[in-house]
Every structure is written in C-alpha cells, then in structure tokens.
C-alpha cells in the first residue's frame, strides 16, 4: 500500500499531521488527521481556586485567550450563582466583539484570502498577504494593520492586557471604562464597520465575480452534509457571547436548542488511539464514524454553522448580507465549506455593528460592573462562541470555591471530525492513479481544512499564516518514491 504523509510543520516539529494511504490501484484508501500534543488543562486546573481558572485557561490558546476568558467568566458566574450587572455583561461582550473583528480579519487577510485573491494555483511566493497587498493596493495593508490594532486596543482597555485578559471575575469585572475611553472605543468601532463593509465588497468583487472561484466554492469537493450548531439569542439571531445553542440537521431542520447547563445531553466526545484530540458528536444521533448525513452525529461549529443554525443576524447591515448569502447560494443550509469564508466576513460585520451598539449604550460607562456573590459555589457551565466554534467550560468546586473537576470542549475540537472528513474527500477527489501530485493540488487539499480556520493552537499551533506541508508518497514497502514540499 502506498502512503502519503502530509506533515504540516514536518514530522518532528509537527503540530498536526495528515497520513494518506493509497490502495494498490493508487486511489486514496483512507486518511488520518493526527494531533500530536496534549497539555492536560482538565487535570491541572483541578485544585486551583476557581477565580483563577478563567486566567489559567487563557493559556490554552494565545490566539483566542479572550474566548477562554469569557467562557471561563460565565462558568464562574454560574459556579457562584451570580448574575453580573448589565454593564458588566455589555463590557465583556464589547471586548469580545472587538476581539472577533481582529481575529476574523487576521484569518481572512493572512490565511484564507490569498487562495481567492491570488488564486489557489498562484505561485507560492505570491500566495500570501503581501501578494494581496500587491494586487489590491498598498492601502489595504494599512487598513488591516489598523483594524488589528484597534481590536487589541479595546481588549486592553477592558481586559487589562492585550494578550491574556485578566479582568473578568465571578459576578462581573474588576474595572469599568471612562467616558473618554468610551468615545475612543466608539470611534474605533465605526472604523470597524467601514472595514467590514470594505472586506465584503472585496470578497464579492474578487471571488463571487469570478466564475472559476464560484464553481470551486459550489463544487462537490468541498461539500459535506452535516449537522450544524451555533449560539443564538431569544430571537434565534446569531450571538457570540450569550444565549442557547441551536442544533440543526443537514436539511436545516432545528432539532432543538440547549442551555449551557444542558450540553451533556447534546454533545459527547469519541476517543481514537492514534491522536491526542477527541471527536465531539451529537449524542442524540450517535457516533457513526467519519461520515456525513442525518444519521451521523458529526456536526460542525464554524461561522457557516452559526449562520445555518440561526434565523438571521441581530444587526441591520449584517442581516442584509445574511439574506444575500442564502439567496446567492441557493437557500439554507449551505453545505459548501468554502462558503465559510464569506460567512466569516458577515460575522465580522455583525461584530463591528455590535461593537458600536454597545459602545453607544448609555449604561456602558456605569460603575455598576460588579455583583458580589452571596451563595456557596457549586458547579457551573459557561458557553460562548469562539471564532472557531462553540466553546464550553464546565467547572465544579467544593464549598471553598476550589476546583474539583473541569471539563472543556474547545472551539476547533468541535470540527475535528468534519475537518478529517473534508481532508479525506479532497484527497480522494484530487489524488488519482496517474495524477502527478503537484504543489497546487496539495494546496487544494490544504484548502479543505483552511476553511475551518483550525486553531490547533488550542491543542497545538496552527496560527494564521501559510501552513507548511510536506508530502511523501511511499510505495507498498514504505520507500519514498516522490517528495513534494510546500513552504518547508
């Protein structure tokens, strides 16, 4: 049997590795996407004072510590049975909206954009953020840097630090914001709205206006009919910070909505011996292996999933784009994974509009940003939508507020099974007997998982940037017959 190893950062550095096995005829027999690292947060957070855990779990991922800090904050609120004041919730959501703008911007421009703006077969040297700047114009680089800077500025103003915020505690925040800060935040938010509109126009002009790209998006290679989950508010509109988790089947039928403390009725995790990461699935449907369809419990939790699982966006401009998204792509749900990039930009616009809404709320500068807990701590679940998927933190404590048990289901982990399936399908579609495995072809396999924006920074480290790949094709005896490298 032939074997192809795609080792994202080569075998020894590898923080994520794909093994492709070919049958005797040269067709793809199977693929394995392996995650080679475990750090054990669920163990070493036990014994810690519970107010520490939203700070400890930041260190799961330095790319999205804000998501862990928010899920952790909501979990410790629940542990103490305390409802933070409206201002505290708004400040947390404001920080989170600004973070979303920075994060989605980084992904679109540095990671996903190059495939579309430059084209999946463009020379490697051009298929990066610099290539985009050269093609679309220098000022765009400045806009991206400014957007990222503004997002981090708000995170620091409310969260105390640019990376690993520290201000969320049981019952609220350790600080509020001044009117002067509010004005600055509002100004930056208005920039974010303009930036999001600009990004959507860019996407429509360059991607939707190009038939080749549109065919690529709509084609079968990158399509999977799975279930979808995403957080929604009381009107079933997408929400990142608070609400219930909506679950829809591959036909778009809503199977139900669960509150954070009901997650174990809906979600379970499967273990395989060849990887450190677990595979979450819908418990009520069951684990049927790496297959799609309504009988398989495999689900997806991405920007595309959030749109599919909701009835719309809560802000006006994002709602307009939501409607255009589904009318262009032929109705709900959309199963084409590459449409995730478009969905991500619609979320960017929602986050920016929400940023302005919150920054202009008269109560945002109130000094009522804390509620002191009065009840004994017990157990609590906090859920937010991380950019890369629904993030669940579940804490148990003794009566002193010391953690006795911790359970975490991290954003990207939700998508581990669908990513594995997407990689297999792309490999099966693209690698055929007698086909030369070219760099462009490899990039098209890579595009299968890039759509999910996999942040194995949460388990490993796939940060935005070109992901290096090395493919070794082996003959039946395991001897390498062809080696191809991309960015290695």
């Amino acid at each position, binding site marked *: 049997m032939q074997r192809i190893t795609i080792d994202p950062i080569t075998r020894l550095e590898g923080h994520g590795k794909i093994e492709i096995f070919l049958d005797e005829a040269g067709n793809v027999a199977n693929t394995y996407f392996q995650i080679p690292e475990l750090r054990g947060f669920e163990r070493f957070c036990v014994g810690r004072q519970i107010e520490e855990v939203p700070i400890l779990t930041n260190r799961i*991922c330095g790319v999205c510590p804000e998501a862990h800090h928010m899920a952790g904050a909501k979990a410790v609120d629940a542990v103490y049975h305390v409802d933070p004041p409206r201002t505290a919730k708004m400040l947390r959501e404001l920080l989170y909206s600004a973070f979303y703008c920075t994060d989605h911007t980084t992904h679109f421009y540095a990671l996903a954009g190059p495939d579309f703006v430059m084209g999946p077969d463009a020379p490697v040297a051009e298929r990066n953020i610099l290539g985009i700047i050269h093609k679309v114009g220098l000022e765009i680089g400045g806009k991206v840097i400014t957007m990222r800077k503004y997002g981090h500025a708000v995170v620091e103003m409310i969260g105390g630090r640019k990376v690993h915020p520290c201000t969320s505690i049981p019952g609220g925040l350790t600080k509020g914001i001044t009117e002067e800060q509010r004005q600055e935040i509002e100004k930056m938010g208005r920039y974010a709205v303009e930036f999001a509109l600009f990004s959507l126009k860019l996407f429509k002009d360059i991607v939707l206006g190009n038939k080749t790209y549109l065919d690529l998006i709509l084609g079968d290679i990158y399509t999977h009919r799975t279930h979808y989950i995403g957080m929604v508010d009381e009107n079933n509109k997408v929400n990142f910070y608070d609400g219930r988790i909506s679950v829809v089947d591959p036909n778009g039928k809503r199977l139900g909505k669960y509150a954070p403390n009901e997650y174990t009725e809906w979600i379970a995790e499967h273990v395989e011996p060849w990887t450190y990461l677990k595979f979450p699935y819908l418990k009520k449907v069951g684990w049927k292996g790496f297959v799609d369809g309504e009988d398989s419990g495999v689900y997806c939790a991405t920007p595309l999933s959030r749109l599919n699982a909701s009835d719309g966006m809560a802000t006006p401009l994002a709602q307009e784009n939501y409607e255009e998204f589904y009318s262009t792509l032929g109705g709900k749900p959309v199963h084409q994974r590459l449409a995730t990039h478009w969905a991500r930009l619609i979320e960017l616009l929602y986050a920016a509009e929400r940023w302005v809404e919150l920054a202009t709320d008269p109560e945002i500068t109130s000094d009522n940003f804390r509620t002191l807990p009065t009840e004994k701590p017990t157990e609590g679940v906090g859920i937010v939508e991380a950019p890369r998927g629904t993030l669940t933190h579940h804490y148990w404590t003794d009566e002193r507020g010391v953690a006795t048990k911790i359970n975490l289901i991290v954003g990207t982990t939700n998508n581990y099974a669908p990513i594995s399936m997407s990689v297999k399908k792309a490999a099966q579609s693209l690698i055929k007997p007698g086909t030369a495995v070219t760099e462009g072809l490899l990039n098209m396999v890579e595009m299968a998982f890039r759509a999910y924006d996999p942040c194995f920074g949460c388990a490993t480290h796939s940060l935005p940037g070109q992901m290096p790949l090395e493919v070794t094709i082996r003959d039946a005896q395991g001897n390498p017959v062809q080696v191809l490298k991309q960015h290695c």
Partner: protein
Amino acid sequence: MSSNGKPKFAMYWAASCGGCEIAVLNIHEKILDVDANFDVVFWPVAMDAKYKDVEAMEDGSILLTLFNGAIRNEENAHVAHLLRQKSKILVAFGSCANEGCMPALANLSPLQDIFDTAYHTISTDNPQGIHPQPSFTVPEGDLYIPAMYPVVRTLDQVVKVDYYMPGCPPESHQIAAVIDLVIKVLHGEAQLPPPGTVIGAGGSTVCDECARKRDVKAIKKFERIQHVMPDPEICLLEQGILCSGPATRSGCNALCPAAGSPCIGCYGPAEGVLDVGARLMTAVASVIDSNDPNEIERILDGIPDPAGMFYRFNLAGSLLRASKAGWQGKV
C-alpha cells in the same frame, strides 16, 4: 551571515499557546526593522518554515533565536537541541521557556492522571478506556504521535540558554526595546549584556512599578477577589488580596494591578530571587498581623491553594520542579 550579508534570525514555539507570537506581531511596524536588519530564516508563524534548511545550516550560523514554549515531549526537546546547535545566541522567550508557565502545574500530577482525566470526562464516551498511543496500527499501516514526557521542563533544563526574556507573554514594548538593542549591537553602537542576563525586563519588582499607594501591611484575613470591592488606589496586598507583586520582576508596568486585578507573577522571579514561591511565602508570612498560631492558621486558610497561588507560573523552574508523583524519578 546570509548571502544577503544580513545576520540570521529565528523564532520557534515548543509547548506553548501562541501568545508569544501574537506579542511579537503586536510590535506592529517594528517588525520591519527586524526584516531590514536580519535575514529571517526560520519562523513558523510568520513565514515558510524551512525546517530542513535549519538542519542543513552550519552550526552556530543563526545569530539570534527566540525560543518560546516549554519542553513537554520528545519533539520539543529535539528542536531545542537542533536550534541550540545552530544558534550563537539562544534566548528563552516568554514564561513557558523560562519557567514552565501555568501548564507546568501539570507537574503536580503523574502523566497517567492527566490521561485518566482527559479521556474520561463527563462528556467523553469511552467505555473501552481508549488512550492515545505513541504508536498504533490501523488497517492501512502504523501511525505515530510523539510520546509525552512525565513532566514539563524549562528550556535551560534541556539546553544551555544565553539570555532570558520573561513574561506571559513578554510585553510588546519590551520586545521592541530588545530588538533595538540587538540592532545597535550589530551596528557597533552597544554591547551585549553578560551571558545569563535577564533581558527585556526591569531590575526591581512589580511593586516598584505599581501606582497603588502602599502603607502598612498588617493582614487579619486574606480575601478572594470575588468577595470584595477593593479600593482602586490602595495596594491590593494591604487589602488582603494575594498579589505576586513583591516576588515578581518588574517590566510590565504593573498592568494587572492597574486594571484592578492582582499581579499573577508572569514576569518570573525578581532580581536575586531564586524561587518565586518561597519568596512570596516569605512576603505573605511577614504581613500576617498575628502571633497566635491558631489565628495564623485561620488567616492562611484564606489561601486554599498555596501550590497554585505561589507557583502559578514557575513550578518547572522552581526549586521544587514537580511533585514526587509527577516526577516519577525520570524525565
């Protein structure tokens, strides 16, 4: 020197969260100075990895390597040895590489406990008790993943380190200052500090940078932050909130106390402090306002997790390094 005449620069992550890389990207336009003065030969986050190129380089041919992340498995150790061999100056960058950071609290538990927890949680359906295996045979062939070490280790417990740059992550203004210094050295306008020096940080404690007013520390009760509304102007420790400021190196501008949150100690031991936990316990003992053993015990009950509070960032780099159970007598 590279063919373009510029000295070579590398940055690498081992077991880490990626926050150090974000902190470097947050120096914004300063990144261009790095590009102008160095040939960036290896930096997985920002550019093509060129891992094979590193192996092919002559020993000592990289002038400066910033290494972040702790040593958690055999692959981390391998890259640490490789980059040591290829680099003239190896900097332990960020808390994980310096002292293990929070993930080193895993050193309190045996590896088996970590597996028994992670693969048997309330949401995990694992009736057969499956755990990941370094080598596993699937129908199509054998699959491999790196084996984990029993404990987290710091970079200098594996290879020789030339300089230490603390922080979780290092603050961007400190990163920018270090880059400025190295560029000056390259132009013959400054000298490198002696090997072993802590760079990109201050020489005193976070307390010295903290704007809060300090007066008499006499504590009758330790408070958890969720139970009090601390005065925004007064020293948090004086208000009974355990703060790592007295034992922690300066350099961050006391960001957390300024935001109403106690120092968590991410900049590591202050100058002359061998063990943060021991230093902090001394500081705590000295502020307890009682001579009655029973009362002292009651006061200390206000800190239910001393291991986590005193060794939050530095267990791997401390004198303790690990619990007996965690160490298991091997690495």
